[in-house]
């Protein structure tokens, strides 16, 4: 699935932009590492990017405004975080500040909701270990890997994007809660889990991913093993001590037990977030789109 790509310098920016097909939406995210709201936006963008398949016509580029001053000037960036949406070299819209819902609305306006055109590619990849690593994850992404820390029990896998954990302390609780508040709204359906959908690190998380995939639900995910601040902060924020946690429309639905029960009681639970709106006809359940057995 899509990840946020860090652009190191002006030359990289120029070549990346020029190589994009004219129908691809480029989401340019200008940030400064010292700005607290940028930390929120980074995690929100990573989660938003994860709802798009790797071959969706949208790319998410991250630019350190201070390291690319000419590009920043070109886009008239005076405050961060600052998001520019452009297609075919033409600016479409800008979003200033750290409103996650606004960013998502803008991206969906031009790139469609997190599914691109291929319904089957909308979902986080099935747990097929033989699948080759996605190009996005292999480009040595930056902050996502650098910031991984404190993972005594966690083994990073070759595939599957990691959400972007930033550096740890220095963030006040208030700032953390604000960040979490945005994070739970990053996608209409958000799953806070251990590991990633392609590499769950816990049986309960794996089962939850399985249920969501079976029902063809589109969702964003956050790997709480990759960010200890969120892992601990979310427990307090949600007044809920366990993971996985499924949030819908910014509200906590519950963990595996509750999710399973909701689906048992109501077949149409979360139907409005499903890929095709119809299960059992095409979409993820169709034989042609099934993951290959391993």
């Amino acid at each position, binding site marked *: 699935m899509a990840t946020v790509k860090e652009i190191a310098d002006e030359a990289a920016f120029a070549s990346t932009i020029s190589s994009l097909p004219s129908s691809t939406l480029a989401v340019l995210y200008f940030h400064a590492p010292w700005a607290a709201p940028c930390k929120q936006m980074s995690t929100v963008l990573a989660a938003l990017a994860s709802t798009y398949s790797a071959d969706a016509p949208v790319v998410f580029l991250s630019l350190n405004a201070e390291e690319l001053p000419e590009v920043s000037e070109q886009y008239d960036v005076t405050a961060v975080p600052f998001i520019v949406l452009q297609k075919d070299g033409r600016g479409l819209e800008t979003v200033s500040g750290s409103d996650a819902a606004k960013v998502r609305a803008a991206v969906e306006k031009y790139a469609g909701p997190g599914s691109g055109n291929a319904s089957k590619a909308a979902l986080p990849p099935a747990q097929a270990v033989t699948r080759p690593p996605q190009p996005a994850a292999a480009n040595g992404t930056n902050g996502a890997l650098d910031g991984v820390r404190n993972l005594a029990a966690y083994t990073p896998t070759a595939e599957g994007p990691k959400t972007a954990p930033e550096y740890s302390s220095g963030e006040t609780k208030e700032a953390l809660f604000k960040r979490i508040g945005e994070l739970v709204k990053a996608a209409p359906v958000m799953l806070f889990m251990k590991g990633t959908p392609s590499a769950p*690190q816990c049986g309960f998380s794996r089962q939850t991913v399985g249920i969501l995939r079976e029902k063809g639900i589109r969702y964003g995910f956050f790997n709480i093993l990759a960010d200890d601040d969120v892992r601990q902060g979310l427990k307090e924020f949600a007044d809920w*001590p*366990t993971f996985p946690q499924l949030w819908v429309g910014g509200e906590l*639905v519950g963990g595996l037990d509750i999710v399973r029960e909701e689906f048992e009681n109501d077949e149409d639970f979360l139907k409005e977030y499903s890929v095709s709106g119809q299960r059992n006809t095409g979409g993820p359940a169709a034989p042609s789109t099934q993951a290959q057995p391993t």
Partner: protein
Amino acid sequence: MATQSMTPMEDTMRMKITEALKPTALEIFNDSHLHSHHKAMQGVTSKETHFRVTITSEAFASKMQPARHRMVYALLKDEMAQEGGIHALQLKTRTPAEEERQKQKDALAIEK
């Protein structure tokens, strides 16, 4: 007097839940052995880390599932927070009426 209990955590859970919720049905299953080899459990000596609990209580009436689970979490807050304490807790929380309805549904399913 008596020998020490082999299941202190389970005993505590049973006592607290019974006292607070006056359940008509309470079952506690210890699933720790299913997870003891998991990476996250390395170095943990406790044999009481993962539990599956079903509770039927009128105290859950007119409460949504997240609220019901929170009631149980609140009771076991200390046990869940302590080192080597409860690591995972699966909950099934029903009212007596819901339990009865489920029984009937199951009976029908079998008949089919």
